[in-house]
């Protein structure tokens, strides 16, 4: 069973201790921060260059605010580690990857077999999101789109 999972195959996971958003605002040298579901990811936008790790916490697997937080950070060019923590279940991780998460620190360990099956399930994607997948509409209409 996996306590930690990453798709950042080229680099080690950050070991930096993540501080709260409030603590981060008062520290000029922190490189890792943790945001809660109700906090605004956009507060981090001025600091994206120096951040190595952003943890986004999911208080419940039914609370989807973290998906938007991840996409917002990636859309603004953040390319450091983006980790989903908390209530992270196998069947959500495919969506999380699409929103830009690249590491996972779940409360409950993940079954590696179920995880592998879930991540390989869908051959294509209907939408353009934060991952590299070219959407189906782009595949249909050739290289000039998407």
């Amino acid at each position, binding site marked *: 069973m996996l306590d930690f999972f990453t798709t950042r195959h080229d680099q080690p996971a950050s070991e930096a201790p993540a501080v709260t958003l409030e603590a981060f605002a008062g520290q000029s040298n922190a490189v890792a921060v943790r945001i809660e579901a109700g906090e605004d990811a956009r507060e981090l936008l001025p600091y994206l260059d120096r951040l190595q790790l952003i943890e986004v916490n999911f208080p419940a697997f039914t609370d*989807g*605010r973290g998906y*938007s937080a991840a996409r917002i950070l990636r859309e603004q060019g953040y390319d450091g580690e983006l980790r989903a923590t908390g209530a992270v279940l196998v069947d959500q991780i495919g*969506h999380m990857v699409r*929103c830009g998460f690249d590491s996972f620190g779940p409360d409950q360990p993940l079954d590696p077999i179920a995880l592998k099956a879930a991540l390989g399930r*869908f051959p294509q994607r209907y939408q353009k999101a934060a991952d590299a997948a070219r959407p189906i509409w782009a595949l249909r209409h050739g290289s000039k789109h998407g």
Partner: protein
Amino acid sequence: MYQYDKYDQAMVDARVAEFRDQTERRLNGQLTEAQFRPLRLMNGLYLQLHAYMLRVAVPYGTLSARQLRMLAHIARKYDRDYGHFTTRQNIQYNWIKLSDAPDILADLASVEMHAIQTSGNCIRNISSDQYAGVAADEVADPRPLAELLRQWSSFHPEFVALPRKFKIAVIASAEDRAAMRLHDIGIELVNKDGVIGARVFVGGGMGRTPMIAPEVRDFVPFEEVVSYLEACLRVYNRYGRRDNKYKARIKILVHEMGVDEYRRQVEEEFLHLKTLGIDPPIAELERIATYFAPPPYKQGLSDEIDRRDPAFAQWVDQQVAPHKQPGYAIVNISLKPIGGIAGDASSAQMDLIADLAERYSFDELRVTHAQNIVLAHVKKADLPAVWKALAGAGLATANLDLITDIIACPGLDYCSLANARSIPVAQKIAERFADTGRQQDLGELKLKISGCINACGHHHAGHIGILGVDRKGVENYQLLLGGSGAEDVSLGQITGPGFDENGIVDAVEKATQVYLDNREGGERFLDTYRRIGMKPFKDVLYA
């Protein structure tokens, strides 16, 4: 109608495999019921009072004969030989075994169908106008955009765990046959200086806090609709309430935030999102639109209808609507036989309707939000044959938009949320007014019944609405007057104290009598109510 290509087919096939795997993990205990619940809900599987209920998506209500036959097959093989067409233009089965669900999804995938996102806190099946493509007053066919949005919303990774369910309707006529402004997002296609685009309304809905969606943008060009909707959804996903499920719909956010502030935040997201290349090109909309090209109508057909048989003539007057193509007509098949269950159809009836669609209507049919079926392109010369076949199967009731064309939720006979039964009340009312002359004298009168305040029976939008409540352990029914889900959208008002099961039937009859005593000229019930107000009705109801 739309046909899957290899990509669409691969997506539904992958979904079947995924759900088979999830079901196995549930059955072997790897997933708890709490963990499995949102997964099965995203596949339309609810746990009801007596069994699982499976809701199958009918995108924008459109089916082929082959698809309807598969729905009949599922009813025969896995259920009790019938299905229930819903107010979201879908079909649901009430007696499903969990272990059969993956096989049912596989059967559906074999005819380009699925149950993706028919429940759960995600973007649901996109609904539309049942007269799409054949209504004379539409500015464009709404179905291509609805299909584009079906694909965009399927497995959208950012919006899989919204605060609450999310319903979108797309129409393209001034006449609203889809209750567009009672959706979380309502889209009306409009023509602005020769360019077609979307007028967007956000924050409508029924439920315990009914609201009419305000306009949020008067025009979004086609090529930016996806960006704009992502902006609408993102603001909702981030700021919609999650502390109370009864205040979690987007209507509450728009109401509490104010439409101007909501619009401002959406515009801010939109400015940014539309630069990201997330909108499909117009070529994709055009590709989809080719599937909705008009069928090969025969030219030069007569508009004559042989009306010598009075029963046939009455059916034509009630159930047949004008078609934009000379010589053709739109046939509405009533799923509201007197004493029956609104929206139910047996497998034999489904097979028969499929045969008629294939033979007389270019192999295509539509489900309506009022829980009836439409054959959209029938030659006027074929109407007698269609009527005869329908009459033989108990499907020729002539009551479209009349008081017995009732929308009713499943109520306490099936639903674990209900406080009161809806079906028997609908049956009693229908029987009370069944005398055809009487209901025809009343004219258009939309009566809608919900068995609890979640309002699945659209009682807020009924010219006459009925809401079942629990009053100290006894079923009690409140009466509402003056709602409308059409282009003259309005919310019904409660008349006063509720009634028991027989009392509500009497109350409906009294309300119709007030209308008959007061109507002027060609007024409908709703028009008279709007002119004279609640007081004359209350005076009679509570005399």
